[in-house]
């Protein structure tokens, strides 16, 4: 209750007790919903949403919400190619626990929005990678994890290796390392979240 009285929204109702059913002013700024009590929140949010939709149109309001939801629930495809997949697996284990960032591997490309290419891509598997990428719903992102996926790595001049997965699909974040540690993978994922946050529609 202390934080309620300390805010401008609270000062409009200085005597509002905990059980008060008083509805706050309709003009409560949208940004101050965080300090509202639960009972005050729903009418305030409803009012703010209605007025914003009326002023700015639906898409301008909904896109940031989808952006926020999307970047906090990046579901990578559970697809291991080479030794980077071991680090990929470790990142989702107990020690690094990538799930605290909302990152959860899915077994189907149709449920994923992030393709982490973790390993050496050969020409033999190249068109399967493209198929998986095309099966993922929009919006989708790609992380090239490790030196092999980034540029072919030590096998760059080999007869069977794609020298960088960006020859096949567009890549958003490159992670260096051979293999990169799970911390590096998490850093790449957080970097991707930053990119999504800054994305212009």
């Amino acid at each position, binding site marked *: 209750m202390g934080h309620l009285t300390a805010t401008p929204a609270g000062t409009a109702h200085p005597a509002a007790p905990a059980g008060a059913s008083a509805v706050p002013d309709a003009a409560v700024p949208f940004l101050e919903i965080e300090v509202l009590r639960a009972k005050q929140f729903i009418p305030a949010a409803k009012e703010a949403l209605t007025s914003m939709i009326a002023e700015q149109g639906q898409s301008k309001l909904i896109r940031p919400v989808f952006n926020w939801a999307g970047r906090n629930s990046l579901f990578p495809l559970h697809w291991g190619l080479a030794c980077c997949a071991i680090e990929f697996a470790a990142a989702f284990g107990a020690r690094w626990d990538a799930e605290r960032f909302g990152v959860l591997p899915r077994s189907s490309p149709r449920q994923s929005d992030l393709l982490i290419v973790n390993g050496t891509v050969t*020409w033999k598997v190249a068109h399967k990678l493209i198929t998986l990428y095309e099966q993922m719903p929009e919006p989708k992102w790609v992380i090239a994890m490790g030196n092999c996926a980034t540029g072919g790595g030590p096998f760059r001049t080999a007869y069977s290796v794609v020298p960088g997965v960006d020859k096949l699909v567009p890549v958003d974040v490159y992670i260096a390392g051979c293999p990169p540690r799970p911390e590096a993978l998490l850093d790449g994922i957080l970097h991707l979240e930053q990119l999504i946050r800054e994305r212009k529609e």
Partner: protein
Amino acid sequence: MQPDDLTQAIAPRLGSRCLGVEPFPGTAGRVRFDRSAALDLFRIVHDDLGFHHLAMVGGIDWVRHREVFYVLWSDPAKQYVLLSTEVPAEDPHVESATPVWPSANWHERETWELVGITFDHHPDLRRLLTPDGYAFHPLLRSFKIHEPEDLEVKSRDV
């Protein structure tokens, strides 16, 4: 089983097409044969000598000729035997071993793909490790390390 035993079992039936049996460390011996005798020799080794397991088929590029070798294992004798034949580099083909050992299928596909040795009457001679339409036999000595862009162009129609 010793190289002499192999000679006694093989040489009378192949005649001059058996080019010799020599000792080879860790095996019963290394049988060199002419490629025209391939299927006859496979049947002798499989049916009469009891080498029922084909462990490996491989190829070597010696520039002027190429060598095809077969590594066989006999469970009763607990022994390996090597069969080896030479094929000319300008006409590298040999009879397939799949009628005798079905497991030769993928081994011969790989040997054809990487060293360019054609196996006649092979049921399914396709590329195994590289994509279809790949233009090279990459383990040949004449294969030069290409720029990645060259490989990309060659493989793009896959």
